[in-house]
C-alpha cells in the first residue's frame, strides 16, 4: 500500500520528554558509574585507580555480612509475601462478609510512611520496654515459664535482619494480595463450576485450578518483591541503621555509609556491585518464570 509515503499519525516526538529524562537522569549516570567506580573521586576531580575500589570493598568483613543479609532479606520477604498473600487472596476472594473490611485494613500499611512504620515497630520490638516481649513474657508466665523474650533488633546474630524482614512483610503483603486478587478475578468461573460438578473439593480446586491459573500474578509478586527486597534501604535504616555494629547491614546501607563518609568512588563501586547482583539474580529468574508460564 501507500503506507510508506504517508507520514505516520503517531508522533515519535511523544517519546522526547520521557526519553530525555531517562537518558539524563538514569541511563547516563548508569554508564558513568562503570567509569567512576574505577576512580578515587571527590565529585570535583577524579583520579583513575583501576579496580582498587572493588578489592577494598571485597576485603571488608562487613561486606560479607551485607551480602548475606541482602540475600536473606530478599528471599525471606518475597517468599513470605508470595505465600501469605496467596492464602489471604483466596480468603478474601470468597464470599465472606468481612472481606471488604479486611481488604481495606490489609492495604492501608502500603500507603503509610516506611520510616513511620519502622520507628513504631522498633519501639514495639524493644526487648526491655516493648509490648511484643511484654506479651511473650506474660504468655510464658501463664504457662509457668520465665523468659526474657527474643532480642529482636539487638540480637547479635541473624535475628535483626529477620525481624526487619517480618515488618517489611507486614507492610507489603497488602499489595501482593491485591495483585493475586486481580489474578483470581480473571479466572473464569466455569472452571470452578465444571470441577465442582466433577466432584472436586474446595481444597482440590485451590491446588488444581486456582494455583495454576493464578501463576502470572504469582510471578509478578515474586519479581516485584524480590527486586524490592534486594534494593531495600529505608526500613532497615529506620529500624537499626545497619546495627548493632554491622549485623543488619545490607548492600544499600553500606553504600549509603560510604557515601556519607565521602568515599564517592567506593560508594559508586558498591552501586555497581548491587547492580550486578540484582541483574545476575533477577534476569535469569524472570526468564525462568516466563518460560514456565509458556509451558503452562
Amino acid at each position, binding site marked *: 500500500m501507500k503506507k510508506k509515503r504517508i507520514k505516520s*499519525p*503517531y*508522533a515519535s*516526538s*511523544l*517519546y522526547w520528554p*520521557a526519553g530525555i*529524562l*531517562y537518558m539524563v*537522569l*538514569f541511563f*547516563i*549516570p*548508569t554508564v*558513568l*558509574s562503570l567509569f*567512576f567506580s574505577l576512580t578515587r573521586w571527590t*565529585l570535583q576531580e577524579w583520579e583513575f585507580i583501576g579496580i582498587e575500589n572493588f578489592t577494598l570493598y571485597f576485603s571488608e568483613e562487613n561486606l560479607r555480612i551485607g551480602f548475606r543479609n541482602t540475600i536473606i532479606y530478599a528471599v525471606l520477604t518475597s517468599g513470605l509475601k508470595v505465600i501469605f498473600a496467596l492464602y489471604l487472596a483466596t480468603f478474601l476472594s470468597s*464470599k*465472606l462478609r*468481612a472481606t471488604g*473490611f479486611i*481488604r481495606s*485494613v*490489609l*492495604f*492501608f500499611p*502500603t*500507603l503509610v*510512611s*516506611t*520510616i*513511620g512504620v519502622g*520507628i*513504631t*515497630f522498633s*519501639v514495639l520490638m524493644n526487648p526491655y520496654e*516493648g*509490648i511484643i516481649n511484654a506479651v511473650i513474657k506474660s504468655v510464658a508466665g501463664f504457662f509457668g515459664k520465665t523468659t526474657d523474650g527474643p532480642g529482636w533488633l539487638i540480637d547479635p546474630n541473624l535475628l535483626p535482619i529477620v525481624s526487619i524482614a517480618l515488618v517489611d512483610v*507486614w507492610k507489603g503483603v497488602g*499489595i501482593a494480595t*491485591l*495483585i493475586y*486478587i*486481580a*489474578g483470581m478475578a*480473571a479466572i473464569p*468461573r466455569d472452571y470452578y*463450576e465444571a470441577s465442582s*460438578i466433577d466432584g472436586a473439593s474446595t481444597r482440590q480446586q485451590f491446588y488444581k485450578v486456582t494455583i495454576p491459573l493464578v501463576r502470572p500474578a504469582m510471578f509478578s509478586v515474586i519479581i516485584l518483591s524480590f*527486586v524490592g527486597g534486594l534494593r531495600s*534501604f*529505608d526500613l532497615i535504616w529506620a529500624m537499626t541503621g545497619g546495627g548493632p555494629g554491622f549485623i543488619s547491614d545490607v548492600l*544499600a546501607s553500606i553504600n*549509603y555509609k560510604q*557515601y556519607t563518609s565521602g568515599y*564517592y568512588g567506593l560508594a559508586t563501586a558498591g*552501586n555497581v556491585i548491587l547492580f550486578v547482583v540484582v*541483574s545476575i539474580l533477577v534476569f535469569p529468574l*524472570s526468564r525462568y518464570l516466563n518460560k514456565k508460564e509458556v509451558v503452562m
Partner: protein
Amino acid sequence: MILTRNKGLKSKTKYRSIWADITGIIVTVIVFILPFYFLVVNAAKSQEESFRLNMSPPEKWLLFQNIAKVVSDYDWHVLNATKNSLILTIFSVFFLIIISGMTGFVMHRKRDNTSAVANFLVLTALVIPPAIVPTIWVLQRIGLYKTLAGMIAIEVAYGLAFAVLIFRNFIGTIPKEIDEAAIVDGCTGWNLYFRIIFPLLKPVSITIGIIATAAVFNDFTNPLYFLPGDENATLQGTLFAYVSRYSTQYNLLFADILYITAFPLLAFIFFNKRIVSGMTAGSIKG
C-alpha cells in the same frame, strides 16, 4: 452461578463461614489495627505517661496539643517540610502521568525500532538500581542538585518505567478504531493523544496517581541523597531526624508519625473504593 449460590445456602458452609469471618476479623485487628492503636494512644499522652509505652488510653487526650507542638517546634520546621513534601508530590505525580501516558501510547501504537528499544529500557529500569553518586554529579552539572525542581525530575525519571508499563498495557484495551476515526478527521500527532486518547485513560491515570502519590510522599531515600539541606527537608526526613531529637519524648515522636500518616489516611478514607479497585485494575495484565 446458580450452583455456587445454592451451595452457599447449605447450613454447614454457612456455619463455617461465620467462624472464618470472626477469625479473619480478630487476626486482622491484632496484626494490623493494634500497632495503629498503639501509635494513636501514645501520641495523645503526656511525656511521662508515654514513657511507659503501654496500650492503655491516655489519662488526658493531648493529641492536638502534641501535634501542634511538633509542627511548630524548631521554628516551624515541620510546616516547611510539609510544604516541600506537598510541592514535590503534586508536581512529580502530575508530570509523571502526562509524560508516561504519552510514552505508553506511542510505544503501543507505533511498532518500530524505537518501541522495541523503549520496551527493553522499561524492563531493565524496573529491575536495576539507579547509580546514585553519578546522578548527583549530573545534577550538579545541570544546576539542579539540592533543588526541588531537580528532585521532581528525579522522582519522575525513577517512576517512569512502572507507569509507562501500566499505561501501555491499558492502552492495549482501547480499540484502534478510535484512533482511526480521529485520524480520518485530521487529528494526528500530539493532538491525537491529548484530545482523544488521554481522556479515555482516566481510570488508569487515577491508579498511577494514587500509587505515585504514596511512593513520592513516602520517599525517604531519594531526598536523602538528592535534596540535602535543612530548608529542603521533606516530611520523611524530618521524621527520621526527630528520632534522636525526641528520643525521650515518645509522645511527640508518635505525634509526628501520626501527623505524617494523616495525609495518606485522609486519601485512604476518601478514595478507599477507588484505590482498591484501581489497584486491581492496573496492577496486573500481561
